């Protein structure tokens, strides 16, 4: 009898898998629709831009979704980590320019300077995450309202401090020489840094998946998303895991900010808030708590934004909100969200 129920369970899964394939084909197919009014060359350029943008949004969204899934915390200060990452990267690039590693630098120096920036952002973001979690977020577990208010307050403070340390105005970011310019592949212009962005996004996705699927830490985090109490009674300090995940999420957001600043070649203090909106949409689309879901969501948002922005610029964000609404109508918990 026991084996019967088990096989029944497996069959059931097989059934949903089949349905899933159909949905997958349909949802991939939709992305070729813009070809009806956009010429193929432009479409290819927009697609690369959209993928790059999606990857960068994913950096912010992955942390947001993990923090929500594990800790049930909606962290509205996530945009602040992002913008701090951007400014740290900007300052470090300025400093590196003094030693000639940025403009007019060789390939190795260019790669080195970007890696240094990412490392600096990682450290700063991570530290900010730990401090924020230990000082403030810890007080708000269990109350969404308090979380939202406190993290929003923290976000205001962090962005204001940023304006004091740097300036409230736009700044131009220098791009390391090796990443300036673009390649021309059969009339398709591909900006070099977009490719870097895609690579970094894929590396981060791979890294997260590796840690989550292959390590003990990953098992603990996934188990914590499902049932915190069981994890605690098995002898793990879930609070420490919380701090760790919050720190990692903040670090990822800061890395995303640095990448974004080089990608856009300019920064301003409100960019964290703007990116947070994208990340929230992505997290809702993907299903709160799912890294894979937010990856898919980020790609969708990045692509849709670029296709629509090319056709009707002011409606680009609106298109993403429409996608979100449609997905919520079909699946109220998002693409990969738990029921």
């Amino acid at each position, binding site marked *: 009898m026991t084996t019967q129920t088990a096989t029944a369970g497996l069959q059931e899964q097989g059934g949903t898998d089949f349905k899933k394939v159909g949905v997958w084909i349909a949802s991939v197919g939709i992305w070729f629709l813009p070809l009806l009014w956009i010429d193929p060359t432009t479409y290819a350029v927009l697609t690369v831009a959209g993928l790059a943008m999606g990857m960068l949004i994913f950096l912010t969204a992955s942390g947001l979704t993990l923090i929500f899934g594990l800790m049930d915390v909606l962290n509205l200060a996530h945009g602040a980590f992002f913008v701090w990452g951007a400014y740290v990267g900007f300052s470090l690039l300025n400093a590196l320019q003094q030693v000639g590693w940025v403009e007019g630098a060789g390939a190795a120096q260019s790669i080195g300077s970007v890696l240094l920036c990412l490392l600096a952002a990682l450290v700063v973001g991570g530290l900010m995450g730990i401090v924020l979690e230990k000082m403030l977020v810890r007080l708000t577990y269990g109350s969404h309202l308090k979380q939202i208010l406190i993290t*929003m*307050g923290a976000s*205001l403070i962090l962005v204001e401090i940023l*304006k004091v340390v740097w300036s409230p105005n736009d700044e131009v970011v220098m791009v390391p020489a090796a990443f300036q310019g673009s390649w021309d592949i059969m009339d398709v212009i591909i900006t070099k840094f977009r490719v870097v962005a895609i690579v970094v996004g894929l590396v981060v996705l791979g890294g997260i998946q590796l840690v989550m699927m292959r390590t003990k830490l990953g098992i603990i985090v996934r188990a914590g998303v499902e049932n915190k109490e069981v994890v605690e009674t098995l002898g793990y300090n879930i609070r420490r895991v919380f701090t760790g995940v919050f720190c990692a999420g903040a670090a990822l957001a800061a890395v995303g900010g640095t990448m974004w600043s080089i990608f856009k070649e300019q920064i301003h203090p409100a960019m964290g808030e703007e990116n947070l909106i994208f990340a929230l949409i992505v997290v809702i689309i993907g299903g709160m708590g799912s890294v894979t879901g937010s990856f898919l969501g980020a790609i969708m948002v990045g692509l849709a934004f670029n296709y629509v922005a090319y056709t009707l610029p*002011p409606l680009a964000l*609106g298109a993403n*909100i429409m996608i979100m609404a449609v997905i919520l109508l079909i699946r109220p918990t998002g693409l990969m969200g738990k029921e």
Partner: protein
Amino acid sequence: MESKTMQPTPVQTERENLRRVRFTRPALWVQLVLLACLIAGPLVVPSFRAMDVMTKVMIFAVVAASYDLILGYTGILSLAHVTFFGIGAYSMALVVFHSGQAAWYHIPVAMALAVGISGILAVALAFFSLRVKAIFFTMMSLALAEFVFILGDQWHDLTMGEDGVSFSLPGIFSVNWSDGTFLGAALNGRLMTYYFILVASVLLFIGLVRFVRSPVGRVLKSVRDNEQRSTALGYKTFHYKVLSNVFGSVVASLAGVLFAMWLGYVNPTSVLGIPVMLNVLLMVIIGGMGTLYGSIMGAAFIQVAEAWLPDLQKLAMLLLPGVEMAQRLAERWILYFGILFILVVIFFPKGIVGTARDVIARRKLRLAQRDHQTGL
């Protein structure tokens, strides 16, 4: 049976007592004094700045109270409340602006537009996101707020973009209209607009109070307490949440119409921006969530602070002339705002009115206990 007709039950006694003190309870007097101050204010203190602050307090008290209905009484955290306020403000501005010449009927048309658009939008927002976890609503509302802001900022043909829209009001509300003096104060368009806003915001506020004290308000309270139980009593809790959300949003949009009338100018940052939303949120929390009257306190606190904080900044700069960092810090008043925000949430979660009510309730309890003991 006879004893029932002879002796009123304690419930009936209490009701009778309440009815008897209807016109003598202290809260009523506080309200009347407040109203009298608002009516006499512009006549007694003929300062435009004072009148400006008073008007903004009235309007934002209504916005904050309507937000409290959603946040405090229904337990939904919306970040799009100011969006509805902005829709009202833009309705007023654009109706006049696009018709070229202001006419008296533009005001009711703008109000109808505000109610219609925000009503439909509120229903749609609630329908999409209230069915699942409440947290979805928050995120959806934030996205909506951002979207409407971008529309206001970039749909240049309709909204004039970030430059905003200036317009003049018709008839006796026009800044150019004046007709001698009244009780020593200049009788002009400003004053008439002020009184119009006074009447309208008092009516809106009374509407909110009535809503909260109606059977619907009681159901909302029960939903916050134990939603499953409300459902088992036969209440469709989803409908109640939608109703209160729509009612609150519509009131906010009407307040937006009043705000536009007062300023004669709207732009995206002043009526749609996230900082305005945070302002309103802070008003509700400082005043006390779920108290409605707290909104008046909260609105007064924030508006007064905003009006006179720049003076404080100038003072700080005078006192510390050489320190550049101090000046930069003084400029960033949102920083203090953020700190205040966190401190209030952590240390003063019940707000002014909520804390006051707690103190009064505790004192009553202590008195009752003492009576009980001495009675023995």
